[in-house]
């Protein structure tokens, strides 16, 4: 009994159909494997929740076309119950099954495989249907080799290869009849059973006829009239004459005098969402496959025993593997390991309070990938996020603060939507967009989709392709100012991946993402936007990686050659999905300037290789980007982004309000921007750096001007005296060398202040060649500063020995 309670979910497994030989789809690409199609279709089942249906928890694609279905279980199946049910119990079961079936038919899901071993009932009399989606996920059985259902529940028309939803009504009738008069045709093989079912078409009253065949006519007649009537309404030969589940439910409710089962909601661990339990259980070491193996549901026949003997040129294989038999048994899983793992957690922690001070988990210092595998850490995080998400949109700021630490993978889709500020009736909005009518871009979309993140089993199936196309079309239609640029598909993929069954939310996320991060990138003529972005990226590289940037400048390896797909797709074209999600986690929290630094972060990881490489090697290297440590890249880019004054990464093409205050402005004409290697800093940022003593000003005016009035604390390196050819700081003189070195060790920002832009540009470039990081140019130069913050100026004191 106690043990029974631990069994919360179960798995069953089967093989999808293998495509024969060398078949190709109409688009000339190889056919999608059946298992992928099943995986795609089954995603919808994962979202279905109903009190009389066992929730689907996971669909796993194993090796060699194996599919494993994991779903909730309760109690025992009807077939495992040896004792007869009382009439009241039968009616109660009937009500609950009819309830579940009404719901399924409403959702346009046909069960087709109702049988006594997938109707589960627990000690309290609660009934749930297990694995009701076989027919649905296998596309009516098309994607598997074996027949669905078992013979005695098949309706006559189903045997004749027909049958719609009302075939389920027949099966339900047989279930009820069996519950009343005992198991039918128990000793017969499939053939004879099917033959008997087919002969029923000649009977006026099939139910009676079946009862007679089983010598149970009297028992049958002894049933109450209303129950018998219900059974007979189900077992009509013509589907059109059968009742619907809605009608049956009404009828059954009338004769059901049992009160609806009222279960107290479990507390503690068992009160948590089943999906979470399953997730934590896996983190705690739960292994679906090993239990299946133990139960003999996955048999390990050595492959060498089933080798083909020959393969002809056309791909026709002779001999070899036979079809694996479909085993309908299930393996149940005990929650014990999870319970043990979380045994020490106080009941308190299951209900975290929002305004309570939270104790930090020790795990928070570990890398993200490890945190994502830590049962206890995920336990706390998930419950906490669940609570926060409940309060969305009012808890948006809390969610952002927590997301800064990390986002539990289980709720990433929800959290991203929250971070992007998705609110409102998005389903309704999405519904109103026409995603069907053909448009001229369809052709290009059709070409690109089968090449977009196809290693991901969700995205490479029919369902994935279809949804991605709908999303793209919808986005293009709602953004008429934009066009389809290749890469938009990759950009959409992460949202689809996280919201596979929630198209509307995927769309809403995409719609919110683009203006925030890729404003104007998808204009028909986006060259100005891209140029600006790349120039800014170049400046950021110079700012943080001067040596590398100087090298790339020298070999003329410009970002146009490699970085356009990085930014146009926000890296989603460059990395696999499991890396993109981590990248975007940070992106969504940190804001639109982060990608620039991520680009720098990637360069930094390849630093040594790039420094050794010439132009050709670089091109080769970036044509197929090597493995990048994303955790490291994210960490460093956040650091860079936070330590960089805002105005330094300023871009004109964002959807932020235009800067009016001359103190904040750093905007320069495009030509100037492209010419400048170092970024400009605004007066405000400069002022705040000065106040924090975080910058070192190099005044490159002539010493005459300098001595008249200068910025307090600045050093004077008259431009006219600099030998631009000598890339050595020492050559600037002893004092500047000392000050600059000191500034470098304290990681100060080097601000070049000048009277005219040109010299500032040249001098900053000189500093970069001397490998000086964090060099920027004071926007507007000395004169602007003097106008706006005259208080910073002073007359330099003459130093000894420098007269």
């Amino acid at each position, binding site marked *: 009994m106690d043990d029974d309670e631990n069994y919360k979910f179960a798995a069953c497994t089967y093989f999808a159909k293998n495509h024969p030989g060398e078949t190709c789809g109409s688009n000339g690409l190889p056919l999608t494997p059946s298992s992928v199609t099943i995986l795609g279709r089954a995603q919808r089942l994962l979202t279905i929740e109903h009190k009389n249906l066992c929730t689907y928890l996971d669909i796993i694609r194993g090796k060699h076309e194996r599919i494993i279905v994991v779903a909730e279980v309760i109690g025992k199946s009807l077939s495992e119950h040896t004792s007869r049910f009382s009439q009241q119990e039968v009616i109660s079961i009937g009500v609950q099954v009819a309830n579940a079936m009404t719901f399924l038919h409403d959702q346009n899901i046909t069960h087709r495989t109702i049988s006594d071993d997938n109707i589960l009932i627990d000690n309290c009399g609660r009934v749930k249907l297990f694995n009701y989606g076989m027919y649905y996920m296998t596309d009516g059985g098309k994607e598997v080799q074996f027949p669905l259902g078992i013979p005695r529940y098949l309706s006559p028309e189903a045997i004749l290869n027909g049958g719609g939803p*009302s075939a389920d009504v027949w099966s339900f009738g047989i279930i009820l009849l069996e519950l009343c008069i005992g198991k039918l045709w128990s000793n017969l093989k499939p053939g004879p059973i*099917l033959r008997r079912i087919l002969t029923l*078409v000649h009977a006026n009253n099939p139910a009676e006829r079946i009862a007679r065949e089983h010598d149970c006519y009297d028992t049958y007649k002894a049933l109450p009239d209303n129950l018998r009537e219900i059974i007979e309404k189900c077992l009509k030969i013509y589907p059109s004459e059968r009742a619907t589940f809605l009608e049956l439910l009404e009828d059954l409710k009338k004769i059901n005098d049992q009160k609806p089962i009222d279960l107290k909601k479990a507390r503690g661990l068992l009160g948590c969402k089943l999906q979470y339990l399953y997730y934590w259980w896996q983190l705690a070491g739960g292994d679906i496959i090993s239990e299946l193996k133990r139960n003999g549901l996955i048999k390990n026949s050595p492959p060498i025993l089933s080798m083909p003997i*020959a393969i002809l040129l056309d791909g026709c294989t002779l001999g070899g593997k036979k079809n694996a038999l479909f085993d309908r048994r299930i393996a149940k899983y005990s929650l014990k390991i999870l319970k043990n793992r979380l045994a020490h957690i106080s009941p308190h922690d299951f209900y975290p309070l929002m305004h309570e001070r939270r104790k930090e988990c020790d795990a928070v210092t570990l890398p993200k990938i490890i945190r994502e595998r830590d049962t206890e850490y995920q336990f706390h995080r998930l419950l906490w996020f669940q609570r926060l998400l409940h309060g969305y949109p009012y808890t948006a700021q809390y969610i952002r603060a927590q997301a800064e630490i990390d986002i539990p993978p289980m709720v990433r889709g929800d959290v991203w939507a929250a971070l992007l500020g998705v609110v409102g009736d998005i389903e309704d909005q999405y519904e109103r967009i*026409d995603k069907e009518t053909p448009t001229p871009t369809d052709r290009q979309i059709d070409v690109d989709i089968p090449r977009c993140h196809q290693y991901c089993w969700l995205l490479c199936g029919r369902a994935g392709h279809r949804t991605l196309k709908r999303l793209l079309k919808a986005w293009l239609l709602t953004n008429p100012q934009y066009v389809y640029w290749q890469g938009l598909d990759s950009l959409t993929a992460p949202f689809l991946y996280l919201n596979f069954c929630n198209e509307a939310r995927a769309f809403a996320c995409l719609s919110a993402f683009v203006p925030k991060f890729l404003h104007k990138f998808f204009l028909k003529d986006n060259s100005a936007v891209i140029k600006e972005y790349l120039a800014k990226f170049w400046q950021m590289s110079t700012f943080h990686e001067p040596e590398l940037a100087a090298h790339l400048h020298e070999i003329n390896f410009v970002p146009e050659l490699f970085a356009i797909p990085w930014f146009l797709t926000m890296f989603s074209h460059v*990395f696999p*999905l499991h890396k993109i999600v981590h990248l975007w986690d940070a992106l969504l929290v940190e804001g639109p300037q982060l990608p620039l630094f991520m680009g720098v972060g990637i360069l930094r990881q390849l630093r040594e290789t790039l420094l050794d490489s010439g132009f050709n090697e670089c091109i080769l290297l970036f044509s197929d980007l*090597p493995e990048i440590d994303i955790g490291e890249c994210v960490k460093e880019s956040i650091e860079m982004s936070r330590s960089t004054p805002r105005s330094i990464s300023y871009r004109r093409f964002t959807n932020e309000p235009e800067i009016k205050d001359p103190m904040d402005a750093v905007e320069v004409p495009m030509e100037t921007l492209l010419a400048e290697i170092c970024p400009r800093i605004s007066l405000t940022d400069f002022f705040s750096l000065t106040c924090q003593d975080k910058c070192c000003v190099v005044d490159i005016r002539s010493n005459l001007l300098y001595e008249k009035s200068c910025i307090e604390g600045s050093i004077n390196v008259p431009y006219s005296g600099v030998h631009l050819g000598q890339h050595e700081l020492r050559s600037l003189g002893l004092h500047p060398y000392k000050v600059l070195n000191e500034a470098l060790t304290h990681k100060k920002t080097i601000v070049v202040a000048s009277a005219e832009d040109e010299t500032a540009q040249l001098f900053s470039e000189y500093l970069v060649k001397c490998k000086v990081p964090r060099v920027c140019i004071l926007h507007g130069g000395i004169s602007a500063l003097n106008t706006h913050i005259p208080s910073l100026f002073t007359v330099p004191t003459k130093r000894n020995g420098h007269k």
Partner: protein
Amino acid sequence: MAAEAVQNVTKTFKYSFPTCTNEEILFNLEVPVDIPYEGSSRELVQRVLKMFHIPVYLEDDLNEKLAEFISEETKNFHNKRDAKLIDQLKNGALNVEGIIKGWEKNFKENVLEFAEQKGSSDEEVFATAYHKLVHSPALETILQVESSYAKTVMNMIQNRDEDIRKLTERQTQEMEEKIRLLNTSTTEEEINALAAKHFEEQSVASGRWESQLDALRHAQRAAHRAWLMAAIDDYQLNENVTPSNSPLCTFPPELPGPVQPAPPRLEESFTIHLGSQLKQTHNIRLVAVDILDLCSVNRGDSATWNRAQPALGLYSNDLSAVVLLAEHEPLRSPLVGLARQATEHHFDDVEIQLRDITEKVKEPAEKRNLERIQEGEGRSRNTRTKRALQPGDVYLSRHSNLADAHLVYHLVIDDEQMKAGDITSRHPAILALRNILKSASCNDVTSIALPLLLRHDLSEEMTMSWCVRRAELVLKCVKGFMLEGSGGGGAELRTLTVALPAATNQALFTALADLLSNIFRLAGPVRQNKI
């Protein structure tokens, strides 16, 4: 069973609403709808509203009406089709027996609970036992036993060769003697008679040896299997027991005989990443070796580990295979001589396997050939259609006694064709490589060796540029096939060995190593970032 070939029907949804000026005059709307309807009816309503500029106040009504229409029509669609089926059944217009037989067969062949109950086959039982034993302390003993068996066979083969050599020597002498005396004391007839006698002697001798060898192999195999099965019983009773020695042979403590240093061969290994976003890691080994060496008998005189590897992997999910270029006639394979140097304890003798393949392949291959001829009637192709197997076909043999392979893929080629420099990616040999890699992924073969130049030996037309061109084609195609296979859900290819003829010189080897690293993206050595 799937409701196969359901013909969708198109029904017209009719809707009317009054014009704004006159309540009497109605706008009529007709929308064709596919039944069963795949999409969302609410989306369809939105499209209809937009397309026909229908006032929005009708939206809710239209939503409701259309949903109702679709559900009603879908129901009708199913009911009508089913009613027709049932009527046909009642009238006896259906082949009921056929349908039921179909279901019966389907259930019996595909569903466990209706299948004929059968336990594991002998093969499977033996496989499990062996797999367990080689992963137990008994491994050492088993390897020793097997190696001593192999030695016995090899000794006998040596004796045979010696015997035959002597016989031949004697016969040659005799013949020379006779010929010397020709026209003096012997006649031509006598010499012919002698030649016939010699031939007779030869075949008797080799026949005798062959049957002795067969008997030996047979006895070894039977004894070994019996011993293994007994050993597994002991082992299961007590895990600590090391199986007692095999009854058939007692072996002296193995002397570390003169270990022949392996001849130095040109060899280089690469680790590569494949895939544009998600990267898969594979190993590629370029080696100059006679590919037949890779399928030589496991001599067991080298380090034990080398010997253990094939045994450990035999019944695992990590098989290794060698691709051998072959003739159209399986029995002429050089493998026959090689593999028979030691007893095959697990599978049929290679000769029997190949004979079996010849028989079984004949019918389907000839059928295919016939179709080809019919298809290509217009074109004049003088393929030697008498042969069942054609270039590009592949047959497989299984082995437990080879050093580097559990499986041999015999790739049928036309050697003359392969000499020509210009083959394309659509050449049968290349397509066959694709089939091989695909089959490998389906059957848990995780390491494969193949002849990179699609030739076993160097010949004079194979100049440097010829070799580079050929290698480039093969490598590029193989790369494509590997990429193609990576998403298929089968076993990943871990190690790919590309073999060059043993006589390859250093210059060519280096050129091809460079080519390989250009075609595949090498995983760079891990670099430490300077901080």
